[in-house]
């Protein structure tokens, strides 16, 4: 059983604090993805787990062992680096076997385990080549092979796919997921790409400026973002954010949006807002759809007309650009048809799926979801 546990972990460079007392519990054989914009502290956090950066304060545990002061080699982890970090002067075979050789395993066992890993990753033909003679995707595979050969307690991935082209990235993403199914070790994975995070993770950890903003399953962080940052970071295209004010209309709380648009406060949020409160309404493009081109089970709906300025056809759907007040908004048109010029369409907004955030704090008015699923 290998849990990874971070308690009040701080990283400082001199006076500058880059990771602020974060807490995180990673379960055995869980695939956890740390995601956030560059400079959010996700890579630093990973490197602290690896032991490549010292922690300034707090406790890191791998399994039952406090590893604060342990060097990387005593943590039984392996890591895949962004630039692969293959040893340029060794063949693929030597690269794969290096860790076992250092640990002084007998030659026959090294050969056996290297062959196994090579087979899992389809490296058979490449074993005697040097890294310089491999393509990007092959290097990526060797780096993963080197990680699995040692059968560590925890795998750490530091943006492993960001040097690959788009097509290969999708392919390797699937391979990583398959790999996890097969070896079932605990994985901590760092990326800035929210699609990667969503597709791979059992749980996503969203970070910003050295803080953890939210921890949860992909669907949880998608359906219940704790704040406007998470709301805008997760999901593509990003969630529309419209500012408005809560007013009373016909005895029911409504939100007065810019551009003379008023929508009722969604039922589930009614007890969480007060009249006069400034709020931000979050609407995903998926929940703002032209009439007849949306999802079928949308529940409570508000309809209004918008003129479409641009449409981006993607085949199965089109992204429509329009404005509400001064805000540009994006909607989605399923089963799309061509849009001519500045066409005016009736849009349905799915009230049940809108999110309400306090304008001042940016926090979800429904409160935070806990760290579990």
């Amino acid at each position, binding site marked *: 059983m290998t849990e990874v546990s971070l308690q009040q972990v701080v990283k400082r460079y001199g006076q500058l604090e880059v990771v602020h007392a974060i807490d995180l519990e990673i379960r055995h054989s869980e695939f956890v993805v740390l995601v956030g914009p560059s400079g959010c502290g996700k890579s630093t956090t990973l490197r602290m787990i690896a032991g490549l950066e010292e922690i300034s304060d707090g406790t890191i545990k791998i399994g039952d062992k406090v590893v604060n002061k342990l060097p990387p080699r005593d943590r039984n982890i*392996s890591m895949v680096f962004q*630039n692969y*970090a293959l*040893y*340029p002067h060794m063949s693929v075979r030597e690269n794969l076997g*290096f860790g076992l050789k*250092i640990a002084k395993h007998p030659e026959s066992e090294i050969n056996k385990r290297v062959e196994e890993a090579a087979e899992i990753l389809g490296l058979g033909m490449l074993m005697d080549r040097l890294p310089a003679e491999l393509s990007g995707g092959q290097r990526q595979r060797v780096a993963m092979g080197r990680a699995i050969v040692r059968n560590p307690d925890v795998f750490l991935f530091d943006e492993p796919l960001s040097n690959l082209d788009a097509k290969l990235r999708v392919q390797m993403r699937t391979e990583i997921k398959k790999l996890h199914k097969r070896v079932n070790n605990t994985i901590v994975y760092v990326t800035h790409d929210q699609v990667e995070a969503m597709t791979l993770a059992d749980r996503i950890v969203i970070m910003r400026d050295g803080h953890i903003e939210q921890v949860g399953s992909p669907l949880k962080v998608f359906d219940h973002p704790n704040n406007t940052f998470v709301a805008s970071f997760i999901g593509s295209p990003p969630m529309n954010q419209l500012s408005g004010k809560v007013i009373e209309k016909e005895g029911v709380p409504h939100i007065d949006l810019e551009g003379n648009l008023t929508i009722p406060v969604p039922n589930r949020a009614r007890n969480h807002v007060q009249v006069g409160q400034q709020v931000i309404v979050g609407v995903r493009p998926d929940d703002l759809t032209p009439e007849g081109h949306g999802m079928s089970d949308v529940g409570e709906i508000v309809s209004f007309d918008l003129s479409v300025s641009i449409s981006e056809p993607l085949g199965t759907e089109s992204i429509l650009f329009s404005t509400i007040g001064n805000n540009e908004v994006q909607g989605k048109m399923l089963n799309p048809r061509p849009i001519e010029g500045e066409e005016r369409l009736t849009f349905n907004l799915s009230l049940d799926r809108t999110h309400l955030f306090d304008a001042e704090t940016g926090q979800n008015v429904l409160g935070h979801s806990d760290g579990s699923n």
Partner: protein
Amino acid sequence: MSSQTKTTLNWIGTFIVMLIITMPGIWVILSGFRPLQEILAKPAIWIPQRLTLDNFRAIFGIGETQIAIPVVAYFRNSIIIATTSTLVAIVVGISGGYAFARYRFRFKNTLFLGLMLSRTVPGIALSLPLFILWARLGWIDTQFGLILVYVALNVPFTIWLIDGFFRQIPKELAEAAEVDGCTRWQAFWRIEFPLAKSGIASAGIFAFLTSWNEYALASNLTRSTNSKTLPVGLTDFIAQFTTDWAGMCAMAFIIIVPALVLTFIVQKHLIAGLTFGGVKG
């Protein structure tokens, strides 16, 4: 112009340029194998008429001879001094270069600049202060004294060159090795050192050649067969009224050969080293 004539012209051009560059060297080597009369003949005899080993016999004191130069002692001194100072300069260069490339510490840039500035002082300007200091310390005419001087001369260069090489090795490689189970020390020896080998080899050959060929300081700081090196030994051929050019050229040949052989051995590294380290240095 066909590509073949172009190649031919290139070869002829290269040959002429190389001939001009290597002429003095060739002349010295040839003269080492010719009798004195032929060397001093006027007008000059360009094509050697008679080759002989008499000059070598003479300096080694074999057979009938007037001059015997303690060339074996000089050779021994040169080997000991050049090799030791090179080894020390390389060890210091590796440690220093690695520290400058990998670690952050106070006054790092100032220190590096100081090392580089020390290269701007012409060696000969140091000869008098060094002489006085060495005389007080009793290091005149010792191998140790000269080794110390050469180490000091070479260390800034070796640090600079080796630093450039370590800088080009991504630090993730050592980190990957550490994650793979290496200690910091193992990661260095098994990953970073082999990758910087060509740079270290180039730094080594340069340090060796500098020590091997150095004349000005050695001539001030050495006196006898205790510490005299080959270049200083050359002046033994200059007597009050005569200079034994033939003997001098023969000895120059002896000096050139080891340097030449060494350069050929590491030539591959040297080329890779100079182009590789030179870019980022």
